[in-house]
């Protein structure tokens, strides 16, 4: 075969091969591509909302803005949760800019996990990585999303999974990303002990910072003065995880809630017993929906009572 013929034949052969790959290995959502696109979108999209949801991965997996606003007509919400997010000024400023200025029902819903108050979380590395993306990168990621999705990168485990006629042993973790910031998550083989080991290490040299709690309280005070309702809660996980966090992280829920209420915020008590986690840290999507609906009702109750003489105390 002459080199010229090889050059001519290369394109059709490559296309046939690509088609074969697409046919035999069904397209599965690529988590990285999907997350990169949606996280870039939620960071750089100029849209504004009535309700802003803040927190770490427990929040972006645990609260669906769609179910949260189900009983709140004409109210928009976005989940601005980021992996290992911490309550620093960078995060506060970013979140506040996403609030609809003209809204009469401005609400900031904050899920305060013990980790979100630690020095490592305060670095907000994931949030920073998205905020620091250049305009060219943002343009590329958003405008070429469909191209990237068509040419989704395939994992070797995915190939083995497709070739395997027996149990789909490698497919365990299911994640569905939504434009409103929620990640519908579940695991076919749930194990609530997975996160426990990880969290034991996380809190070894990384405890809840008193400074972070005070900074959060100050910010809540500022927001309240601006007429923004700030509602806080501890994201549910498992009883075992809460016990571990309480013993290792230095998280004192009653003290934190007291400071928040003193500074004009609201505190909602959530009982982890009522929810199911698939890894000991994050909620199964059915529980996430349940939690979102509960919080939605709490917000509705609060907004309906805004003209009454409601004292700022626990729900």
């Amino acid at each position, binding site marked *: 075969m002459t080199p010229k013929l*090889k050059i001519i034949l*290369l394109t059709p052969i490559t296309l046939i091969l690509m088609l074969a790959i697409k046919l035999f290995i069904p397209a599965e959502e690529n988590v990285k591509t999907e997350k990169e696109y949606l996280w870039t979108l939620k960071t750089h999209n100029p849209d504004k909302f009535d309700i802003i949801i803040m927190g770490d991965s427990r929040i972006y997996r645990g609260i669906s803005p769609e179910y949260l606003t189900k009983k709140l007509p004409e109210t928009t919400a976005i989940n601005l949760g980021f992996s290992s997010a911490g309550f620093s000024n960078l995060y506060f400023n970013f979140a506040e800019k996403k609030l609809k200025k003209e809204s009469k029902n401005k609400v900031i819903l904050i899920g305060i996990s013990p980790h979100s108050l630690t020095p490592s979380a305060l670095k907000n590395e994931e949030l920073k990585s998205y905020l620091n993306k250049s305009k060219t990168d943002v343009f590329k990621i958003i405008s070429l999303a469909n191209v990237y999705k068509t040419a989704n990168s395939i994992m070797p*485990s995915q190939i083995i999974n497709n070739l395997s006629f027996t149990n789909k042993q490698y497919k365990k973790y299911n994640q569905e990303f939504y434009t409103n910031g929620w990640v519908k998550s579940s695991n076919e083989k749930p194990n609530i002990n997975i996160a426990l080991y990880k969290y034991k290490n996380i809190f070894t040299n990384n405890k809840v910072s008193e400074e972070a709690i005070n900074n959060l309280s100050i910010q809540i005070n500022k927001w309240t003065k601006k007429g923004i309702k700030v509602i806080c809660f501890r994201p549910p996980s498992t009883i075992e995880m809460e016990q571990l966090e309480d013993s290792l992280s230095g998280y004192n829920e009653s003290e934190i809630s007291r400071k928040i209420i003193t500074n004009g915020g609201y505190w909602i008590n959530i009982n982890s017993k009522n929810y199911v986690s698939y890894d000991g840290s994050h909620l199964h999507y059915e529980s996430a929906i349940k939690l979102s609906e509960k919080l939605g009702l709490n917000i509705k109750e609060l907004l309906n009572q805004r003209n009454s003489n409601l004292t700022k105390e626990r729900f």
Partner: protein
Amino acid sequence: MIFNSIEFLIFGLLFFVAWPYFKKQNQRRWVFLTFMSFIFYGWWDWRFLFLIIGSGLIDYFCGLAITKYPLKKRLLLIISLIGNLGSLSVFKYSTFFANIADDICQWFNINSHFSTSIPEFAIILPVGISFYTFQSLSYTIDIYRGRLKPTNQIFHFFSYLSMFPQLVAGPIIRARDLLAQLQTDRIASPIQKWNGIKLIAFGLFQKVVLADNLSYFIDSAFEGKGNISGSPYWWTVTIAFAFQIYCDFSGYSLIARGLAKYIGYHFKMNFNHPYLAKNLKMFWERWHISLSTWFRDYVYIPMGGSAKGFYFGIVFMWITMILSGLWHGANYTFIIWGGLHALFLTIERFTKLKKRITNLGFGSLAAMITFIQVCIGWVYFRAYNYHQANDIIAHMFNFSNLSLSFISTYFDNLFYLWIAIIIEICVSLRRKYSSIYTFYKKYNLDIIMVALAIAMSIFMRGEGKQFIYFQF
């Protein structure tokens, strides 16, 4: 601009569409190549274009003056060396040297702030500075030695110095190889074009499929995110890094050579399956060949090489290896890396053990020993500091924890390590048994391989990363 980016795809299309028009006439060709190469480089940060232009102009005029004023040629060479090594010192080594100065002052209880007094612009490392500085230096040194005639066409010189395929990560091309090629309108034959396409496809595969897919596993380990330990784990991390850096850098070199070949130019091979080497000397004849030969021709041999006797040869080799380490980065870890290679080479010269093993018919064992030595060196090369490297080495040789649990956690990454190892084994077998090569040729399997490499680069690409050698 990196090869595996949308920007480069657009840039490449524009270049190849316009190239046939510009290539026919010398001046037009040089100006076009220089202009496009500057766009390619300036895409990263246009301000650093002044650096290439500045050091290029020094060498261009020094080159001309050396021929015109032979009596002052030593002075002119010193000017060129100061210009090039000066900018390299400022932009690459100033922080490192300042830290050393601070450390020394601290020993003598003197309060110093050298490292914090460095101007901000000098802290940023311009991409590929070590590559183009060495390329530019070889031009004046060759003229000084009377081995090269300077060009009096400024764009001819700059098209050589800044030619975009190899500008930021090599291969380091010698002026006497490329200037002559740039003097004519070179028409690439169909076989050259096919070979160019092959090199680009295989280079892309090495970079985006193998190197990029391994990066997550390696980064997690060195950043301590894995929370895993044990000897098998750290050996796997080290071997994975050996293949990551090889595939990353060799991938870049292949793409650069392929792009040049497609337009009719020839860059020498930069990697020749170094992990199949049966001793370290052979390894250095196969790893980053353009840099090894640069150090051989401009450092080792001018010092005296092996001509001044066995022991002097070893001293010169140590100096060369440590300088080579320093070339890679301004950190003690790189110096230790160079020193370790020098130490292993010294042992090799004294004992000739691997040669004896090979002669006994155990070539694979010699290759394995060499690979282990190279891997130990890579730990220092990759580690953030020598304390971390020492810890990792200790873990590697502490066989009390033999856990293999990490394999399932990083299955998707380690799959590519197996692919990389299998490819090297296939290459070794193909070299050993000519029948495999004949079969490959007879059935034109190269076209299937190229198509597979392209398809895998699209569907099995890893997380987009910059080429590792850009930082050098």
